């Protein structure tokens, strides 16, 4: 059955190939990005973009993609297992995932599972470091990760098909198909992805395998846009995801694991734009539904579940002046959320927010931005938030950027309503944070070095005896204060000599995340994290080398040396060969060797990560 579906997708994609009829010339094109806020309101922030070529090279999982290409640390319970992010040393609910401008962190636990999302269908993923509650609401403290669909209008009618299929060790099959039809008035994009794996890699130096680790998922994305008239256009985005995965066990007895997890997500967004002279209106309507089912025992049909439905309406207004050097924008948002789990009866939460953003360029060298936001929430008081950003170009190559903001993370449904344990007196966690960075940019190099500081207070922590009236019961309370500080370095380099193209990029982060009382490093936050990619390209051939150094992490609050996850260094290598390429078509074949040195390492204690493994892929564009 699994295989049949896999083949079906591959064949359907091939069949679609015949529908192409237009010649693709060098055409004029207009790209419509889904999230205006990210492009326009990130003055003073570091935003790095992972292009579709990077996404197609790392189709195995969202976790792997970001682990090798961003400064974020992932706490992954064995490859393909539950995976949460720690951005700048913050907790899992302090990294927000934004789909086409909408925050999609779970209502129930405030997090995004980075292995319960496939992202290869998106056109670009942006990683923005730093606070962003003004634009994206709850949880945008460490940073935000943006999944974007870019819609392309072309002056002539054009179709484009892309098929990426890979076969890897442990019976892993990844496939995706993307189709686009566009002209100067309308554009349609359809994407399908299907991934499956037995994921039963051997645990090095043991007799065990990663049993009960299989997964399969299907993604269907559709987006379209058309011009209603010269000034206005309508856009629609839809992303649907169905997944089933098993949760593998840990040493000493991985055979004990028998649980299973299912996920369903449907996200729909309708956007109307009107842009006339200095005024720009945008109206957004969204409907997002998500559901998970957790089966404690895969052999038994009973399960725990969580469900939520969100309705949202936004009205954004922008007014530009001073020869378009200044803009005043207003974002008004209303959101209604209905959430429930098998333990929590359906609760409705409504939120209204209003933000005002002012940005301006002064001459060619200076741009700055000020933002304020006020939220009104039916469940609790949300703090007033504000942010400032500035970027100054001090010379041809050097710019200085700075930003500061106040952000928050609201209590989740689980925090508030879990029977017997929830705490209705919780208030949101809030952070005050700032960053100062230097950018050096010439034709070959780009270096961004930033120093950040985040002070979080009222952190929500679950502890036994959290409530004196409920002795012995685990209860969430606003307990601790934490101070995170560190450095983030992003470096990229490109050199071309005749037909030899060499490029390299690197992310390094140094993070101190201290509990304010104990001055100890937070658990599962590595002090040092370094990843990099080096590519060498000659004519049709290209090689790449990818590596990750993940520093030691403590697993106890007292930073006991007896309970640590040691540092590890993992490398992947690959080779790509372009069989042919012309204006119409391109066909690549690639081989990737993951964990080439067969390093025996863990991210979470007792859960070994995959040994050396192989992945053969083809990438066909026509």
């Amino acid at each position: 059955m699994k295989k049949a579906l896999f083949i079906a997708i591959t064949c359907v994609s091939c069949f679609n190939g015949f529908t192409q009829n237009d010649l693709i010339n060098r055409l004029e094109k207009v790209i419509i990005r889904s999230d205006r806020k990210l492009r326009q309101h990130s003055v003073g922030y570091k935003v790095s973009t992972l292009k579709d070529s990077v996404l197609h090279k790392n189709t195995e999982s969202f976790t792997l993609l970001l682990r090798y290409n961003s400064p974020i640390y992932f706490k992954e319970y064995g490859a393909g297992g539950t995976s949460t992010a720690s951005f700048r040393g913050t907790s899992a609910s302090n990294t927000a995932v934004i789909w086409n401008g909408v925050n999609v962190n779970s209502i129930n636990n405030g997090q995004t599972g980075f292995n319960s999302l496939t992202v290869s269908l998106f056109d670009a993923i942006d990683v923005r470091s730093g606070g962003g509650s003004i634009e994206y609401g709850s949880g945008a403290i460490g940073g935000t990760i943006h999944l974007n669909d870019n819609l392309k209008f072309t002056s002539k009618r054009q179709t484009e098909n892309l098929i990426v299929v890979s076969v890897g060790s442990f019976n892993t099959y990844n496939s995706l198909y993307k189709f686009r039809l566009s002209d100067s008035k309308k554009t349609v994009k359809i994407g399908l992805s299907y991934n499956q794996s037995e994921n039963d890699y051997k645990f090095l130096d043991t007799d065990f395998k990663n049993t009960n680790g299989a997964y399969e998922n299907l993604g269907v994305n559709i987006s379209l846009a058309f011009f209603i008239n010269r000034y206005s256009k309508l856009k629609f985005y839809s992303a649907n995801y169905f997944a089933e995965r098993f949760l593998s066990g840990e040493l000493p007895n991985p055979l004990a694991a028998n649980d299973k997890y299912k996920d369903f997500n449907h996200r729909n967004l309708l956007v109307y734009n009107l842009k006339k002279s200095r005024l720009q209106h945008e109206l957004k309507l969204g409907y997002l539904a998500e559901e998970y089912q957790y089966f404690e025992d895969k052999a038994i049909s009973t399960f725990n579940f969580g469900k939520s439905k969100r309705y949202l309406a936004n009205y954004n207004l922008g007014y530009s002046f001073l020869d378009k050097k200044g803009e005043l924008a207003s974002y008004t948002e209303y959101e209604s959320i209905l959430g429930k789990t098998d333990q929590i009866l359906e609760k409705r939460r409504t939120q209204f927010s209003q933000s005002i953003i002012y940005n301006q360029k002064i001459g060619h060298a200076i741009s700055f931005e000020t933002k304020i936001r006020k939220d009104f929430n039916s469940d609790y008081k949300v703090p007033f938030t504000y942010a400032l950003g500035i970027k100054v170009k001090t010379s041809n190559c050097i710019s200085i950027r700075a930003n500061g903001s106040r952000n928050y993370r609201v209590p989740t449904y689980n925090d508030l309503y879990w029977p017997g344990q929830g705490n209705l007196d919780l208030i949101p966690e809030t952070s005050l944070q700032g960053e100062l960075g230097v950018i050096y940019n010439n034709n070959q190099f780009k270096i961004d070095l930033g120093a950040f500081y985040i002070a979080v207070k009222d952190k929500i922590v679950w502890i036994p005896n959290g409530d004196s009236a409920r002795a012995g019961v685990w209860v969430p309370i606003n307990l601790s204060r934490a101070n995170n500080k560190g450095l983030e370095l992003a470096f990229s380099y490109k050199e071309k000599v005749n037909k030899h193209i060499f490029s390299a990029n690197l992310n390094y982060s140094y993070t101190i995340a201290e509990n304010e009382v104990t001055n100890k490093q937070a658990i599962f936050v590595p002090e040092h994290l370094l990843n990099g990619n080096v590519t060498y390209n000659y004519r049709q051939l290209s090689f790449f080398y990818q590596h990750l150094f993940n520093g030691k992490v403590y697993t106890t609050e007292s930073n006991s040396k007896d309970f640590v996850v040691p540092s590890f260094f993992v490398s992947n290598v690959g080779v790509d060969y372009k069989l042919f390429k012309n204006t119409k078509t391109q066909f690549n074949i690639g081989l990737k060797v993951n964990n080439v040195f067969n390093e025996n390492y863990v991210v979470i204690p007792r859960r070994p990560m995959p040994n050396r493994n192989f992945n053969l892929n083809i990438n066909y564009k026509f």
Partner: protein
Amino acid sequence: MKINKLLTVLFLISVFFMSCSNDDDASTPRGDYENGILISGEGSGSTASVSFVSQDLSIVENLIYKKVNNSELGTFLQSMAFDGSRAFIVVDNANSISVVNRYTFENLSTITTGLLTPRYMTIVGNKGYVTNWGSTADETDDFIAIVDLSTYAVERTIPVGNGPERIVENNGKLYVSHKGAFSTNNIISVVDLVDDKVETITVGFKPDEIFVNNQNELVVLCGGNEAWTMDETIASIVKINLSTNLETVSLPFATGEHPTLMVLDNDVLYYELNGKVYAINENATALSSTAIVESQGFLYGMEVKNDRIYLLDANFSDLSELNVYNLQTKEKIKMASVALGASKIYFN
């Protein structure tokens, strides 16, 4: 004569030496972890572990299983059982029992088949009887596994009601308290070791600790359903006459009170309520209102021996705290950092 005398002297000398070496044998430690206290920690994100504290409380050593065997126990270490030379470490989430030499902690075997969420074990002869919750998603598949302690294989199982917890043996019968796993239950199973026949005795909800006292009675701590279950019941300490299987004494707690720990030592019952420890004479007809000691943390384990009470304040994200008090003076005589998620104390 001289020779006889010489022989006699030699005989005496040899006896002297022999007895000396005999004496030596007796006092040679059988391992690093003899004459002390073993504390088991459930673990959570970090591994389950066992800590050792010497009898005089001067030496504290954590992670002894990991140090000796260079491997981890997994999560969550529920309990331990002992026979003459071995300790059996029951780890419920790992469906395993690690068998070690109780004095050296060297691993002898790890039982990984035939167990499903194992909780507690008692040993009768060469058999281990292990309570198992079965699949946590199924309330009808709970059982007692019978482990052959020579082969370390589960030889057969006896089905019992939901959520079997503590298990003790008395007079050819097993007594099992059914706390109810992830829901609640209110029975004691009585298993006849001759024919595996199971009878049940109804008690208060959430029966946990059980002891057989000198009057052939089973003393049971019933914690009662908490308010959040939406079906709150009263907690009690009850006594059951084991000749008739009938309840003879019941000491009820007030509504809203849910004790979680109980120890029977020398005719005194010690029990925990809201982080405070109370003591009553075993024949008392009422509960006490005066605490003897009070925990400063999350009181999760308790044991009493030789005028000392040992309390564990558990921490699940860090090392836990062991506090030892003199029972006469109520003075704290020792504080030590021990296993993560510390929950049980055993005298080795």
